[in-house]
């Protein structure tokens, strides 16, 4: 929304964010939704990592997300440190229809908490929630479920989530929201259930992360030329924590530009 022009340059804060998670949980789709508000087949295969940027407005500040969308295949795991190095935020994605993907997510969280920047803000995102929602809205046979059967994730295969298309949407869910929420609380993570397909929850992740990031510190360190300390200071929180809903709404617009 062209706010970059009005906001002076020195006001924009760069935030390095990394997406991690098992293969085919929809990492790239979540980013695509956030960056260009689209849902489509991937144009760029993720080799190593894809790099995208998106501006996001928070109060009077402009955050410039530098997003590293990493490859999910297990063997790329050893390359991941290269991307989460110096990251101020991470979104760990799992697939609500696949229990093992949460396990993998947990191991990513553990790794981040031990190896990454000590003040990294981590968000846990259960993606493809659209696949399990149809039953909640109208349990039983719904005409819309047909279209929803299309995998949320662009990279999903006929053998993946759609394989269960004949099942009741109810049974598709393998990770109860409560379970993931409980884990997130215990591990001190932000938690969202998202759908890159419908857009649900996607922008919220990035706004909430923006609120939690110690912006002042990043600003101070970059201005002072102290190098990329990556927000080594404590969380400033405070004033930013109590943003009301309207502001949040406006921020959403800012993000979707």
């Amino acid at each position, binding site marked *: 929304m062209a706010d970059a022009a009005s906001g002076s340059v020195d006001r924009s804060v*760069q935030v*390095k964010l990394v997406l991690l998670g098992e*293969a*085919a949980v929809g990492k790239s789709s979540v980013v695509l939704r956030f960056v260009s508000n689209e849902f489509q*087949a*991937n*144009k*760029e*295969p*993720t*080799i*190593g*990592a894809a*790099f995208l*940027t998106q501006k996001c407005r928070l109060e009077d500040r402009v955050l410039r997300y*530098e997003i590293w969308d990493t*490859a999910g*295949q*297990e*063997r*790329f*795991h*050893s*390359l991941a*440190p*290269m*991307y989460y*190095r*110096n990251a101020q935020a991470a979104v760990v994605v799992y697939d609500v229809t*696949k*229990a*093992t993907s949460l*396990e993998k997510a947990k*191991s990513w969280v*553990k*790794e981040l908490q*031990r*190896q990454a920047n000590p003040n990294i803000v981590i968000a846990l995102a259960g993606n493809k929630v659209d696949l399990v929602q149809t039953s909640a809205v109208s349990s039983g046979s719904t005409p819309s479920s047909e279209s929803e059967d299309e995998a949320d994730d*662009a*990279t*999903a*295969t*006929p*053998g*993946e989530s759609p*394989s269960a298309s004949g099942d009741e949407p109810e049974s598709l869910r*393998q990770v109860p929201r409560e379970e993931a929420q409980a884990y997130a609380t215990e591990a001190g993570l932000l938690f969202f259930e998202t759908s890159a397909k419908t857009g649900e929850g996607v922008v919220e992740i990035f706004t909430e992360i923006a609120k939690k990031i110690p912006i002042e510190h990043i600003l101070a360190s970059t201005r002072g030329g102290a*190098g*990329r300390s990556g927000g080594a200071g404590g969380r400033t929180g405070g004033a930013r924590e109590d943003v009301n809903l309207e502001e949040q709404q406006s921020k959403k617009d800012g993000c979707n530009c």
Partner: protein
Amino acid sequence: MSTISTQLRNFKEPTKDQLTHVFFSIPEVPSVPPKDTEKRGPGDIENMEINAILSFGAQEVEDSYAGKLHLLPPYLAFSSLDRKSVKFTLPLSTVRRVERLNARAGVYALSLSTWHGMKIIVQLTSLRPTADLFCSLLREALKAELQRGQMKAVKGFVKTCYSEGLVSLSGISDNEREDGSLITETKEGCPPPETEFHGGLGLQFKFPGDPKKLREASKIKLWTTYLKNHGRNLTLLRYPQCTRLVQVGLPNRLRGEMWETLSGSIYLRFSNPGLYDQLLLDIRGTNSTSFEDIEKDLHRSLPEYAGYQADEGISALRRVLQAYSHRNPEVGYCQAMNILAAAILIYMSEEQAFWLLEVLCDRLLPGYYSPTMHGTLLDQRVFESLVTRCLPMISDHFQAVDVQLSVASLPWFLSLYINSMPMVFAFRIADCFFCMGPKVLFQVGKAILKINGEKLLQIQDDGGFLNLMREYFASLGDSAHPESADPRTRAITRFQELLLISFREFAVISDETILSERRKYRNEIVNSIESFSKRSAVRNLKTLARFTKEQAGFIYDALYKAMCEIPPPPAAAPPPSLLTTADGNQEKAETRIGIPTFHVFLSEILTWARSEKIVINGFQQRIDREVAEHELIDRLFYFWDTSCKGSLSFQDLVSGLDGVMFNDLMENIEWFFNLHDKNKDGYLTKDEVLTLSESFLFIFRHEIGDAYLGAVSKFMTNAFEYGDSLLPQYTDSKTGAAEPREIGHNQPYLNLATFRMVVLADEVLESFFETDLSASFRLEPVPDLELPPASSGFLGDLWSNIATQDNKRMFNRLSDELGKTIGKHQVIYRPTIGRFTKLEEPTARESLISPPTKTTSSGSSLDTGVAPSSSSTLDTSSIHDNGPLSGSVFSPMPHLKAVNAAFMERTPFAIDDAGDDDDDSDLDMVHGEDDDRVLDEVDAFLEAHDSGLTEADKEMAKDLLNAEPVK
């Protein structure tokens, strides 16, 4: 969660023979079916190399080149002395006639004719007997090929090659073709339908790029001439002209075939007919995790290309990737392979692509796509070091702003730039890559950095770096000198500039540079991969139990060492049906070890699970470790296998050890009791009491003195006494006397309380359970495993040959024998508990020649306190002697540095001279000029080549062309 691979340890430096095979792009193991080898006997296939001068003349007279002729059955290969000007690899089956030429006296020359009549003359310049031997070996090898029927196979095979049609067709209609659209061109240029040549998706979905702009017609014409004169497909001779033509870009329709010819994958296809189709049949109906991964990526492999928006392209891609992953399950499928496969399928048939993919993954990009991706990491490290050396300013700046080169360069290497640059340009890099080898990737990578040098010095973070690279790649088609007044300079694109800088300024980066750099950093990479997987294995433990992370690391080390010694059986893959239905729970095969590996593992950390013999033979004193075999160890294995899978995971080991290492007296007694209570009913049977006693004896087998023996026998007596007396009594109705009931051997007999009482009745056993049992498990750093020595050159190789385990063993055996003959041989078992050490000092030791070192002090300090055996001292000292020596003698670095420094001083864009011979880019150009333009570009790459011959030699070589065969 964790898979532990010991594969990296098994790496061996390639032998000279292997390097030669790689150099000539010959499949490593000549693809001879095993039964044939047996039939012909191993002695028949003999390699030989000989000095030779190659002269060659069909229509044009080319220079003659001095070089080496290699007989590598079933191939004959030649390379010029500089190893780059001229080279060929001929399958012997394409040779139809070999004649000895009747030339001047003292000249030994052979004339070889290929199946299509091309004549190659080689003058063997070695001594006469050597030349005779070479000839007889060549004759043998040719005979063998004839017997195998390979000669006949050639005719059928070449029909699949586009070049054959091109050459035969051009003989008839060598007229100027229009630069028409690709479709019409394909129709016109299409060889007669009976030659079923292989082609790629491009024939149907068009090739990327504008054929007119790419000057396709001119390129085809030049290549037709070249192929006619210098052989094609199986018989291609690579003269400097060939390399230059490749550097200006291969014509689309010939590209696929040239790729397989230049990379050598054509030899694989030739020697394995029908294998690809067979693989496709084999995989029908099967499934694997690789297949699932492939499925996910099919639609995101060059999705902008029309062929991959259609089912044909997608299915072809699927088949090729599946076939490869099936043939090479260790690699399976790695993201980025889809990009390569998709790219090469545009230019070649599925079968061709399959073999090229194999050559890519196995030889050209070794280890790039393996599960650890060690090849990728290694080459990134090598690239980084080359950049540090050649472009120090950039490297310093990157360090200052903390930007990692790999964030951009990793995808360059992993997908051959296809993912980074516009396809037309990436394919031209691929042309050079297949022709000149992996060094091209490094040369281009450095040229990219050099060209963008000034801007790179401005970047502040990863993002800026990536954006800069993205912009640069998008502008590759633009003029490199838009402001130049000279239109010819203006016409040079940034891409041309890139190639020129790559091959001129960074020509110093040779295959040898890459090889030696890889050797240098290999250990570093392997160690970092291993410590990474160790850290994640420890982190992914569900519970550390009472261990610290460091201790868990020691357990991991011991496990890893055991796995290196006895690799566990391959993870039992669940039946395919499970894979598809289950929700991916089986997806990651966890590393689990079987009993044999467990024995080794336990011997690492548990003193009584190994036997340590102190061998003294008068020459040396050493400790031989043997893995102990006993029922008790197997019992432990099953005791810890709580999930009853017949195998143990890292987690099982950690939990199992936790159950015994932190116990106090009572807990230990209980643990030992439970270990022997098989049915877990709280009672030992009489048999189990006996087994338990045997376990005691096993544990105490090397203890000195009678104390333990006495304790065990006392234990047995007491156990049965108490056991009997505590049996439920029943009153004999007749006598009224209470009698113990007779009890079967497998009936519940002794409970924990009784066992405890019996144990505590003995001081020795009590102290065993109180401290010694727990203390016999020792988590200590495992000494570093030996990696293949990093030192290069002859001495390094020699050393790696000598310092094998086998040789050490042989040396030990020899000295033992000697020791026995002179009566100094002596073996002492080291006690595993070592509480009683007073009795053991054998008197024989006093008479030793060398003063005895303290080997049998108290048990706990034994592991570390023992002086290293003389043999191992010898080993390490000689390693130290050799290391620096070989490094300094054989390192090419000082020289390289000087050359690179010289290059760095040149002006940034020293290509103005190249622009001189290029002309304007008028599209309505006459064809003749167009050809010239391509040739001009060819000339731009011209490098002075030295044929290594004197004028007299050349004269003689020319003579030979007209010589008559010996009658």
